[in-house]
């Protein structure tokens, strides 16, 4: 970066490099703060990592791995499906509609704690009605772009 410092505080910013000026300041501040935080909490960080006292746990105790994974897998699949279907049938919001129905059904199923046939029918009904409602109201009447 060409910065001419004629006196200690004077500064001119070279236009070609000006897009890096502020980011560099921010990065410098982040580095300083990070060191400061690490040093002032060194004791606790060491204890957390080595396991004396409160070991650092990334996941909650008794984390529900199944539901967590279900969420983290179904959502990207949903997005990809939306995009792909939307490219096959463009401009009708079909990508949204056709991928929302199975997504809602599967995710609700995953979140369910008691699998009774009554609840499953409820989920199925919701999985069909809710996306249809949104697609119709927002996509057709309000004319909002849907994938």
């Amino acid at each position, binding site marked *: 970066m060409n910065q001419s410092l004629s006196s200690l505080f004077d*500064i001119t910013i070279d236009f070609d490099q000006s897009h890096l000026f502020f980011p560099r300041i921010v990065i410098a501040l982040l580095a300083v703060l990070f060191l400061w935080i690490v040093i002032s909490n060194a004791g606790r960080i060491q204890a957390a990592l080595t396991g004396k006292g409160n070991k650092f746990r990334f996941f909650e105790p008794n984390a529900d791995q199944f539901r967590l994974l279900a969420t983290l897998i179904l959502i990207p699949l949903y*997005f990809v499906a939306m995009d792909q279907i939307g490219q096959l049938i463009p401009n009708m919001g079909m990508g949204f509609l056709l991928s929302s129905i199975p997504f809602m059904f599967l995710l609700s199923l995953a979140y369910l704690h008691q699998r009774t046939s009554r609840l499953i029918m409820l989920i199925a009904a919701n999985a069909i009605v809710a996306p249809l409602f949104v697609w119709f109201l927002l996509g057709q009447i309000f004319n909002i772009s849907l994938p």
Partner: protein
Amino acid sequence: MEFFDLLSPVFFLLAAAGAIVGIIFGAIPGMTATMAVAVCLPLTYSLGLQEGLALLLGLYVGGISGGLVPAILLYIPGTPSSITTTFDGYPMAQKGEAERALKICIVASLFGGLFSAVVLFFFAPILADFAIKFSYVEKFLMILFALTVIASLSKNMLVGIFSGLIGVFLSLIGTYDVSNGGNGEYRLMFEFMEPYLESGFSLLPVLIGLFGVATIIEQAEKGVKEESAERKVQLSNGAPFQFAVFRSQFVNLIRSSTIGTFIGMLPGIGGSAASVLAYTQQKNLSKHPEEMGKGAPEGLVASESANNALTGGALIPLLSLGIPGDSTTAVLIGAFTLQGLQVGPLFIGENIDTWYAMITALLFANLVMFAVMFYAIRYIAKVVLVPKFILYPIIIMMCVVGAYAINYGIMFDVWTLLLFGIFGWIASKIGLEIAPLVIGFILGGSAEVYFVKSLESYGTFTIFFTKSPIAAVLWLLILASVVFSILIHRKSKAAKTSATV
């Protein structure tokens, strides 16, 4: 007056609808007013500015108010601003006085909301007139002040500043915009990302991801357990509601509403801080402090009037300085952007009719909120029963609609949702604070522009200190907030160590 032409029946209908939907969103634990506004934001594009604002302001007022319902009935706050309502509301419900508690809260909420709307009406234009005189230097210092305030009120000040800076950093990703005097270069990213991140991350998907999707991921990790709600929705066996209870609460109402409005004015601080501060103040000044926490109406009054007073207060810095007062008003910026307007000191002067329309919408929404909640409370209480396994997928679907539509159909924004949802989930695990991060993200771009332009115009760093008396005052404020926060942290550390002794 032209202004009355803007007030069509649709305007009032939308404000009312917004209030009702907002109450429902607020009443469901896990869904917040911010989420309601964020998800409905894209709808406002086709509605036009005044109507869109009517809807969003209705959602805001309704959302903050709705949180009191599960707070009282289930001991679960519907929104973070209702945490202190649980302290006295739930014990009252257990004594069978649920309806009384609910109605006390509703009246207190109405008072707080109207109080702050009046303050907003008179104070914001004054502040705006003042802020017009700000040059780039003062504007930058204003943002710096906002960031220090938020950091100082977070649990750990260093981490708060760090989170805010991370937000700023994230906002800088993209091109250095030519329209802001930049050179149009890409920065802070790898080459393959260039086509997607030309204008950086869009605000709305980031917000919805951090507040909406992250919450759902957390809930999934916890197992999406349903609260056992069936037993809780019977409403009144004990003492009935009487307006007379407010005779002794007048000072409480005024003080708590003032606290709420003031906290709302501070950039970035939200409802939970307002209600906690008002509640603790009431406890300090109460004649019967031991009653609070066991079902004292004064606790409810303090909590609910403060959190509704926040609504008007948070709009003050937004409409006079362009700096959002809390995360919901931050999302409101999106509504103005959708319509091509910029909020800042010139906003009120140039858009005086919209300004009057907004005040009207705010007042009307408060009245609708009151009417709906006061008379239909039995039905509202049932909302608490919607099962999460139905609700959460619907929320994700609505988030997707919101994110996609905001830039008229960019799939990358939908992926941004997921990215920031996961980021938000991880961030709260490692201790980063989301509120400063969001404000940093929103203000980061402006901070850069003002900072660089100040230097380009004056050529020296010392200008930040010597520009004008206003700059000096701002530095004093920054210093004051830093000192204040250090004092608060020392005090709470001392309290903790003496409590464990």
